[in-house]
């Protein structure tokens, strides 16, 4: 099938086939979207019936978010058709999508609400921002208008209080109530439980049940298998921009994950229990509690081992990394490094002791903008070790260049030399520089938070290869939200969510999903 097809032709096809399904509310047919040379969606076909909860699964880059953005009117499709309630659906903007009957609750609550405004005003925000709304709506009227919206999601709070006083879970309900205000026929929930505890997530799902009965279709994007098990009537799995499976209940989640990553789940490379008992672990945590409300957990990491801490975005993985690195404090519990108590007071402490962290989102956590004079490969690599290398203050550029030349070799960084500016490198090579930085001095414990973020497949293979080659020198913890990445790099994968560790009863990774 061609990728660019005349939408009108497809409209005919879609109208012809719409009848045989039990009147789907939304039908996507041969939906295609390209960004430059990247094909984000290729001939995606999917239909959703009223009152149905369809879970959308897929690894990073499978095209989930592109599909959601087309449905919610952020992007226009390049080819294919969308039909909503029997009519062609082509929203020109998110507002149009809402008016046509598709409302979206986005993952980031912070982007959707105004904490300083009252809860009532937040509930009515779309209405207040509508140019057609009256120039003045008295507060009492606003509260009255907001009350039914709040009660629909079971939000029993003082609506005149500022939104910022609510818990994150209740703020989530506010965004849900706002989405429901437009009486949508399809509700898209993008990772709705990412920042919620188990109890809060259950509360949210309980609010969704009545919608199902009202005939509102729900498209649920989630990485949490618990969410899917609780809510999904069907699981649609995407890979490489197309639908690869459409599973009906009872759903075999192991099979689902295998379909999602496109190959069987491998056995873990080493047995978890084998080495743990005999040696002093390089790093160990006992009864570690990251936040006052999270569950305490234990963790042991041996020298020579790469352990992947896998779990959803917002599940607290970065917090664990930063706690070990001394950038935040744990609520309680103890950590040990090579058998000695480990309680770093700052990243500087950690770096001195050989505990290195390559943070997530390289431009935020690791790299310097081009206005910084030494934002070159050499300057970026040497920065954490300036006080170690140049005790007397004067920086000898020859020293850092030599280190950079080595790193360029080891990591296969494509560049013209150690003085290349970081902004001149491709994303994959920038990420290699970030990782190479923490290899120029020997590490005892290396923490890598989302090391494959924004990295293409080739660079990812290079990085995995280098990490594995150097793994014997130290203990390595890799924090990733993508299970496929975890499996690719690690000896052992543990599941981390809601700021706590879920221990694996067996070495088989399938246990992750039980």
């Amino acid at each position, binding site marked *: 099938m061609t990728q660019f097809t005349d939408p009108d032709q497809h409209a005919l096809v879609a109208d012809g086939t719409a009848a045989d399904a039990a009147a789907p509310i939304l039908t996507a047919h041969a939906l295609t979207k390209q960004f430059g040379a*990247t094909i984000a969606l290729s001939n995606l076909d999917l239909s959703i019936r009223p009152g149905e909860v369809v879970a959308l699964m897929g690894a990073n880059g499978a095209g989930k978010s592109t599909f959601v953005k087309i449905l919610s009117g952020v992007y226009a499709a390049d080819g294919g058709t969308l039909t909503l309630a029997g009519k062609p659906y082509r929203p020109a903007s998110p507002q149009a999508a809402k008016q046509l009957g598709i409302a979206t609750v986005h993952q980031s609550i912070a982007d959707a609400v105004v904490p300083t405004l009252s809860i009532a005003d937040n509930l009515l925000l779309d209405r207040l921002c509508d140019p057609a709304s009256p120039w003045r709506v008295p507060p009492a009227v606003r509260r009255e208008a907001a009350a039914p919206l709040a009660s629909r999601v079971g939000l029993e709070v003082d609506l005149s209080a500022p939104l910022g006083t609510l818990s994150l879970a209740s703020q989530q309900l506010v965004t849900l109530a706002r989405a429901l205000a437009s009486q949508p026929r399809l509700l898209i929930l993008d990772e709705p439980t990412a920042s919620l505890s188990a109890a809060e997530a259950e509360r949210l799902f309980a609010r969704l049940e009545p919608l199902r009965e009202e005939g509102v279709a729900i498209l649920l994007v989630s990485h949490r298998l618990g969410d899917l098990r609780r809510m999904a009537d069907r699981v649609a799995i995407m890979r490489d921009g197309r639908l690869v499976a459409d599973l009906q209940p009872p759903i075999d989640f192991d099979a689902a994950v295998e379909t999602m990553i496109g190959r069987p789940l491998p056995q873990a490379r080493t047995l978890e229990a084998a080495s743990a008992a005999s040696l002093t672990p390089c790093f160990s945590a006992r009864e570690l509690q990251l936040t006052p409300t999270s569950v305490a957990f234990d963790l042991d990491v041996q020298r020579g081992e790469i352990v992947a801490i896998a779990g959803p975005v917002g599940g607290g993985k970065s917090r664990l990394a930063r706690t070990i*690195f001394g950038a935040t404090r744990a609520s309680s519990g103890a950590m040990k490094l090579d058998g000695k108590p480990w309680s770093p007071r700052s990243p500087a402490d950690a770096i001195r002791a050989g505990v290195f962290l390559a943070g997530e989102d390289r*431009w935020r*956590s*690791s790299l*310097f*903008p081009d206005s910084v004079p030494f934002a070159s490969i050499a300057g970026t690599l040497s920065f954490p070790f*300036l006080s170690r290398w140049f005790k007397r203050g004067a920086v000898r550029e020859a020293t850092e260049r030599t280190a950079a030349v080595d790193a360029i070799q080891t990591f296969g960084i494509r560049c013209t030399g150690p003085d290349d500016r970081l902004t001149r490198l491709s994303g994959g090579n920038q990420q290699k520089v970030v990782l190479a930085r923490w290899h120029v001095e020997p590490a005892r414990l290396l923490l890598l938070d989302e090391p494959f973020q924004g990295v293409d497949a080739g660079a990812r293979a290079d990085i995995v290869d280098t990490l594995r080659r150097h793994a014997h020198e130290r203990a390595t913890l890799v924090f990733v939200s993508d299970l496929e990445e975890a499996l690719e790099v690690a000896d052992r994968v543990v599941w981390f969510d809601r700021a706590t560790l879920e221990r694996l009863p067996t070495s088989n990774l399938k246990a992750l999903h039980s």
Partner: protein
Amino acid sequence: MKPVTPSIPRDGTAGEPARPALRNLRSLRDHLERTGILLVLAILIVVFATKEPAFLNLDNLFSILQAVSIVALLGIGVTITLAAGGFDLSVGSVAASAQMAASYVLIVWHGSALAAVTACVVLGVVAGLFNGLLITRLRVPDQLATLGTLFLLAGLQLIPTGGRSLATGTVLPDGTEASGVFSDAFLALGRFRLFDVVPLPVLILVALTVLACIVMETTRWGRVIYAIGGNETAARLAGAPTARYRIAAYVASGAIASLGGVLIAARVGRGDVSAGHSLLLDAVAAALMGYAVWGAKRPNVFGTVVGAVFVGVLLNGLTMLNAPYYMQDFIKGVLLVLALAFTFSVGRRTDSRG
């Protein structure tokens, strides 16, 4: 398989070869960004020298430098804080109150020149610490914290003398008459000329410029300061004690500004309540013009000093050509706006590449 992100050519030189005409235009622009301000400075000097030969007189040139030295000193302080991602707006007030403090020590307390200088530097360090702690501990935004300090010090310096300027014979608020004098040793700080030609303030400026350039450009301390200005999170996660460095930047700025105050007092020979009136804007203008020098596109000490000299040459030349004095502030305003426009347009261009 994951979609492969195509590597985007960063500009015309990477990726496809740009057309020759376009490349020439771009290299001309790069060239102008690099040398533009120095070129304009050279043209100014030539124009002034042809119109008024006395402009090139050695005495005149050094008097320009002497006039510029205090602004340039303050500008160095501003530059250091700008490099650390902050902005010290209090330098003018620090200099002015240091100047009053020096006079007070000399005239009211009959202190020595050394005591007066020490008092000034202590005042500058304390003001810098105050700024730094407001910013790092209480998390007041840099500009607002230093703006607060600006008003605080501008008001504070008026209190001991009851709002009067301070010279030998001034009657103090408690009714006594101040009987101390500015000692020759102290006055020499502002008036001594090496070989009867080079004024001491110019020598101090040169020494501090060299020192600050070395620290900012070639040591790890300078690197950490620039790193904090570029991305404080990245600097902290790489182990830099960022709060301490930011405080240090403000302390350095305060100390340098107070030294400027000493030089003002030594030149004027009395404690003048209206001194330091336009110092802040001149210093900020110099620091921002410094972004444009030699294509640095960032705060840099050398550029700041060039910027200060640029303003000095322009004002001196225009005065010699009988431009009315009341035009001066307007001209400085125009220069500041041009410098700001240049700085921020360049900043945006570099960001969009990242």
